């Protein structure tokens, strides 16, 4: 029974994607997903593995996401430098950054042996070997390391087991997202002599005098938290995976690596919470008319042939939940922004809140101008908006009376006039202000 449901979901998702190759989730897209967990459109398209970037281009809303070749080169050069010679340079850094007691660390780095395992070793790339096999090997290594140490613990008094550090390069992890299995590839895992695994992420943004670009650090922390969560769920023993991850970045203006320990407990909590909130894809699919597809219908040369109109209609079947944040995380943002024109949410969550949570700009202005009778739940917001409108108009005219500006600003009366001209009191709440733009 369970299996039949899963098959049905898989089939439906395959049909949604059509003939195009599947786009897989990664830590970055999961992090993005949790930035807008309420969006059904994105949840379904990601589950189906639809190439959102291509889709956006096909409907005329190409996303502005691209990476500069210079950034890619720099990233690769730095990663190669850090991982050269089986991560030789990294070992001391890791010991320094993860040991609370610096002296013990120095001692350890010399006395404990280090095992380096490359699970994605050249030739046996993820596709050649298949993800299942690599996943199995990752899990096997982690479990046997955990077991070895548990054994050592029980007879700790008699003779100490060799205290060793294990470095795992190119491991593969699995995480269920919205009822779908997603494979993840962290840069490195390190299992310390105390038996705890730490996620290690290599990033090429610089840390200057101990400070780095806050946004980039935040993104890296969420991404690493995704790995920690996946590891914990795979192993079933949260304590075996530390909430302290290690970011390895270039120091100051050089190429010298610097390891920084980052506590991702807060990100883990948020992720856990958001992943639980993700509606399972099946529920969303059930609400979808059976004929809907995002099959780009590639021609012989791979170019999509499905008309933009059909794709747009299909998109309309999936409810979106646009917020300005989408612009930095989702390939469909330009399309969704267009749809959201005239909505207060498109101006940002805090603006919407200041406007009393009223849905559309047209409603806001009508309530503020007294041109619309508020519903019971809008009464408080409407009263606040009316005061705001009065204060704004009085402030503007008082300011102009005090110091007449050289460039004329619209007087409140003109503003009111142009407002009512651009959108007479709408008949329905969904009337969008942007309608005036085309008219």
């Amino acid at each position, binding site marked *: 029974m369970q299996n039949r449901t899963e098959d049905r979901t898989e089939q439906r998702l395959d049909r949604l994607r059509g003939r195009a190759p599947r786009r897989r989730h990664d830590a970055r897209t999961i992090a993005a997903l949790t930035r807008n967990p309420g969006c059904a459109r994105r949840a379904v398209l990601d589950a189906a593995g639809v190439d959102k970037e291509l889709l956006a281009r096909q409907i005329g809303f190409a996303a502005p996401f691209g990476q500069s070749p*210079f950034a890619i080169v720099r990233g690769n050069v730095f990663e190669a430098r850090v991982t050269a010679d089986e991560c030789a340079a990294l070992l001391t850094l890791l010991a320094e950054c993860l040991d609370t007691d610096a002296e013990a660390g120095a001692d350890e780095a010399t006395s404990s042996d280090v095992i380096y395992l490359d699970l994605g070793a050249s030739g046996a790339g993820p596709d050649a070997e298949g993800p299942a096999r690599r996943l199995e090997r990752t899990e096997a290594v982690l479990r046997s390391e955990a077991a070895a140490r548990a054994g050592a613990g029980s007879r700790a008094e008699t003779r100490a087991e060799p205290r060793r550090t294990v470095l795992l390069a190119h491991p593969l992890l699995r995480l269920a997202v919205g009822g779908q299995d997603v494979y993840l590839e962290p840069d490195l895992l390190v299992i310390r002599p105390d038996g705890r695994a730490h996620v290690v992420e290599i990033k090429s943004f*610089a840390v200057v005098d101990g400070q780095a670009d806050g946004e980039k650090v935040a993104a890296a922390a969420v991404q690493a938290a995704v790995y920690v969560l996946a590891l914990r769920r795979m192993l079933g023993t949260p304590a075996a995976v530390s909430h302290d991850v290690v970011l390895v970045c270039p120091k100051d*203006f050089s190429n010298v690596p610097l390891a920084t320990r980052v506590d991702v407990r807060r990100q883990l909590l948020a992720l856990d919470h958001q992943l639980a909130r993700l509606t399972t894809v099946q529920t969303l699919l059930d609400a979808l008319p059976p004929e809907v597809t995002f099959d780009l219908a590639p021609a012989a040369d791979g170019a999509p042939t499905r008309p933009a109109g059909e794709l747009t209609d299909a998109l309309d079947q999936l409810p979106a939940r646009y917020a300005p944040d989408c612009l930095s995380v989702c390939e469909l943002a330009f399309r969704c922004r267009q749809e959201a024109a005239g909505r207060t949410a498109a101006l940002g969550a805090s603006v919407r809140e200041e406007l009393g949570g009223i849905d559309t700009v047209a409603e806001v202005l009508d309530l*503020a101008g007294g041109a619309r009778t508020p519903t019971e739940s809008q009464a408080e917001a409407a009263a606040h908006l009316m005061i705001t409108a009065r204060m704004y108009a009085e*402030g*503007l005219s008082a*300011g102009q009376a005090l110091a007449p500006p050289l460039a004329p600003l619209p007087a409140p009366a003109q503003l009111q006039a142009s*407002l009512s001209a651009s959108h007479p009191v709408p008949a329905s709440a969904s009337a969008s202000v*942007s309608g005036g733009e085309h008219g």
Partner: protein
Amino acid sequence: MTAISSYARALAVATGTAAPTATVRHAHLSARPFVLVPLTLAGEANAPLAAMVGTAWDEATLLVVAQPRNRDLRFAFADQLAQIMLPHVLGFAAATEELTSGPRSLDAPQLIVPNPAGVEFVRLFARSTRFRSTEGEYAVAPNVPVLGRWLTFFAERAEIPGSSLMLAVTDLLGLHWATGQSALEDANLAALLGWIDPPPGLRGAAAARLAEDPRHCPPAGPTTDPGFDTEQLAPAIAAYDTAVAAAAADPAAGSAGVARAVTRLENLLRTQLQPTWDLVWRALDLLDGLPPGASVPARWETDRARYTGFHTYMVEEGLPQARRDGAVTAARRLNRIEQAQAAYDADRAFDDPLVMAQHRVTGEAFSGTVVAVERDRRIPNGRGKGRLVTRPLLTVRTEDPIRLTVGAKVVASSRRRQECVIEAIDIPPEGGGLLITLEARSGMGRSAVPAPGTVAEVGESLCYSAVLADGVRSAPMPDTADTPWTHGGPPEPYEPTEKDTAEAWE
């Protein structure tokens, strides 16, 4: 976001152009600002790629780093920038006025960048140049570390609210107008200006969309458009590298090739910089169209004093600023920023009724008309001996939703020197708003009777606010020498070490 600015955004959506959120200009604008539009190479830690600089719209100088990964070329760029910028910056130091506290320059340099990322570029570029040594193995031109120290000064002043020594244009525009898009989208200078000053026939939203297309309008930097990097910049830099290699093999024949490759890069980077350069100057013109706020000159005086102070420091000592502040310095600095913020917020509200409008919405300010005045009221001063002080009472009728309570200190924007205290708040029997009774406590001259004109008359309209500059009091800070040992003991004054100067930069 505030209620007023959010409402203004809603208005902008409906009208199709940005709505004003200020009626006066809240920053000083120099007659000769030094505009710097920097570009960096993607992926690198603050590697300059090019810059357009100058003090007039039609006098731009283009600086280009042909191979941004080359350390020597980077410092050559720093030297070029220093040669243009330092004479300008130092040129304001000669003309001073004598104050009791010492000399103060009559004017000061002003550095303008397109956006906050430009400020961050300056901060990091300053950090990467101020410790450089002018002798030894990694010697740089003598100008370079001096430039680094001055840029550090500007970047530090940029953190102080109300200072106009270094300004980012997008911040400046955002202070005076609200667009019909989100704050996130406002970070794009071209899109922001698209709303504030749309080209004829276009509504703000359409102008902003056009401006977001990197092919139509290159980003304001310092990061370049990845498409530009791939299609144009990468081949041009590669061509330069090839030309340099050829010249190394055959100097006689190769130098023309290098010159050609550099010219190609210059032309290419000019296409990316010129549009932003023009936008910056257009924005400055727009801002110039607003009359300055009443308190702007006073804040600029502080900036001038800081400039003179730093100039003196550079002449007398001139050591580079520390990499990081010590605990006490950092705490002092935060405190200074908080105080400056409170003073700046109050200044703006008193200068500008549209800024005050926000305080009226939240009930921290109210506008009204004087309905009664007890001008010659005198009461015992409370210190015995039967002395009397002049304490006029004013009654103001307001319709505003006030949240202030009896005992609150308020000041009227048109009478900033007179502090009043709310004595009573009554609902008039005939209805219609509130009656606020205020006791005037200062600003009436020295004689027993208030000097003429120092007390408001019946019928006068006033706006009173509790947003006072002294809202944040300075927390007592230990003297530097008394730094508690928990904070690392008395900090050493910063001296650059060998390590600082030898630091790799590649």
